[in-house]
């Protein structure tokens, strides 16, 4: 049985269709990330699952039960918000027990659950404090705790780490992953941060304009993006793209015919196409010599980032980025030979932008 099932879900605000005919199955204990830029409908979808928005059509099942018309509190979900949304006038303990008190749960049981959750999240020493006296990371823990005490089947996260500073975000990301392993609950996580998505997810759903573009494990999404949008969205810095004609198993790039024999085509294709190659898959210097594609480029800009260095140049009138090792003496104006293997590339139809 799937933990969450979404069937033909429509949601429209007036005449604007935010989600249309959306289907999604989420397995028991899965960590699913909804990834997309702002306005793609990912938070809307989460709010529909939570029951905070009434759907226009379709059904939602949680643990096999049709919850389409159920109140948020009856769905067996816990939700963590980007802004934490802690009740400012209550102590941490009050925040954790608010939901349980609303269920008219027995006092002893509330106490037991609060102490168990605060132990898991290591916030026992904060129980008597008010949210105003907590740091961002502590507040986020309390917000997670509020979902934890309710002993729900499904956790919903709405960009929970976006308000934290970079270092804390990395720490809490690891903690979230450990927490998921420990609890084994189903988790649905909305983010626009692809690093969070790649590191946390069992499966990622990349969304655009209310439609899931690709649903798959992080590896597949990264190496075999299903269309140009996904290819461009995933990866930082993003993929380099070149336009060129494909004919008889070869492509014209930079006035050079490159054999596509090693490319895994879905079906034979002739015509214009996009070729995409990730900056980290480009080889440079002497490594580039025996690649399927070779060229010499002039360095426009060098961005040292410590662990590696990003080099900006121009190829076939398009900006071309590639990664080299961190300690390098490449300078602006240098001529450098680059190359890449065809099996590392992605080809897309020029019109439909679907993977070939």
């Amino acid at each position: 049985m799937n933990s969450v099932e979404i069937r033909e879900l429509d949601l429209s605000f007036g005449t604007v269709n935010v989600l249309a005919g959306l289907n999604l199955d989420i397995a028991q204990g899965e960590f699913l990330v909804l990834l997309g830029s702002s306005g793609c409908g990912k938070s809307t979808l989460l709010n529909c699952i939570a029951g905070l928005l009434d759907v226009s059509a379709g059904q939602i099942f949680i643990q096999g039960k049709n919850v389409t018309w159920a109140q948020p509190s009856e769905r067996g979900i816990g939700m963590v918000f980007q802004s934490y949304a802690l009740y400012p006038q209550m102590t941490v303990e009050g925040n954790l027990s608010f939901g349980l008190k609303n269920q008219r749960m027995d006092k002893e049981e509330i106490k037991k659950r609060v102490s168990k959750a605060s132990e898991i999240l290591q916030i026992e020493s904060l129980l008597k404090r008010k949210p105003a006296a907590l740091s961002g990371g502590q507040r986020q823990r309390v917000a997670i705790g509020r979902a934890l005490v309710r002993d729900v089947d499904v956790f919903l996260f709405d960009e929970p780490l976006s308000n934290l500073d970079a270092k804390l975000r990395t720490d809490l990301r690891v903690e979230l992953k450990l927490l998921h392993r420990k609890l084994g609950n189903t988790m649905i996580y909305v983010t626009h941060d692809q690093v969070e998505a790649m590191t946390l997810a069992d499966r990622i759903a990349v969304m655009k304009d209310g439609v899931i573009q690709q649903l798959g494990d992080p590896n597949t999404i990264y190496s075999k993006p299903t269309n140009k949008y996904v290819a461009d969205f995933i990866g930082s810095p993003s993929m380099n793209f070149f336009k060129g004609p494909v004919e008889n198993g070869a492509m014209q790039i930079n006035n050079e015919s490159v054999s596509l024999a090693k490319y895994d085509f879905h079906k034979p294709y002739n015509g214009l196409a996009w070729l995409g190659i990730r900056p980290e898959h480009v080889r440079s210097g002497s490594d580039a010599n025996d690649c399927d594609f070779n060229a010499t480029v002039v360095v426009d800009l060098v961005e040292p980032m410590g662990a590696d260095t990003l080099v900006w140049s121009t190829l076939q009138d398009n900006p071309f980025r590639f990664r080299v090792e961190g300690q390098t003496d490449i300078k602006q104006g240098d001529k450098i030979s680059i190359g890449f293997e065809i099996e590392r590339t992605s080809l897309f139809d020029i019109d439909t932008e679907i993977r070939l």
Partner: protein
Amino acid sequence: MADALTGPSGPPPKRIFSRTNIMLYGTLLVVSIYYLLPLYVMVVTSLKGMPEIRLGNIFAPPLEVTFEPWVKAWSEACTGINCDGLSRGFWNSVKILVPSCALSIAVASVNGYALARWKFKGSELFFSILIVGAFIPYQTMLYPLVIILRELGLMGKLGGLVLVHTVFGMPILTLLFRNYFAGIPEDLFKAARVDGAGFWGIYFRIMLPMSLPIFVVALILQVTGIWNDFLFGVIYTKPATYPMTVQLNNIVNSVQGIKEYNVNMAATLLTGGVPLILYFISGKLFVRGIAAGAVKG
């Protein structure tokens, strides 16, 4: 190295009698004198006896301080055949003020909460109609209200006036509360719904504790508005239930006998005292009421 620092260094010098300061404080001084002088005259006059007032030195401090006029204004001044002073009007006003404030604020805050967070079909239209109500002059509704109150059997009774004040406070108070509740982060409201709180649960346990400042603002608006009201008071009540303002008018404008300026001044100060005291107290409440870090930051 110390003598190396030549030229301007450290904070710039401040001159107390700079042109800006003279203009600023000069203007403030003149304006405060302009507004405080009448108050000074009132206080001084109310502490003088009639012979001293007849001398005509209205700015002079009292030679002989007497509280006689205050006592007279409170408990002896005559309006028509009643000679029990302003005290009756004061208690009438209190009896009008307390239920009117409580009722209007209670209803308007729930209105504002519902309109901000539980949007229903037509809620925006309903809100617009309510706001239009704030722009219609009261005078046009005086007579219709007389008929309505008569039909309800509330004409001339305190309950009738309470109802009128509650209704007329609704547009501005609802607007006030709606905008305040709309400013409370929506995530908080969503979190409470996930936690299983309903309409009243969220109102009483999440929204109310966060809204002390706006309740104080509403209270100040209503107390000053209702206490200072004259028009509704004189129309919808009868002499036995006249509020303080109406009674003050009757004392001051009484044409019989000699004009007792000192009593009139004392009566006016007594009537104006209630809103004045509220202003002084609420300043403190305001500061204390501003809620600490609600969401992030």
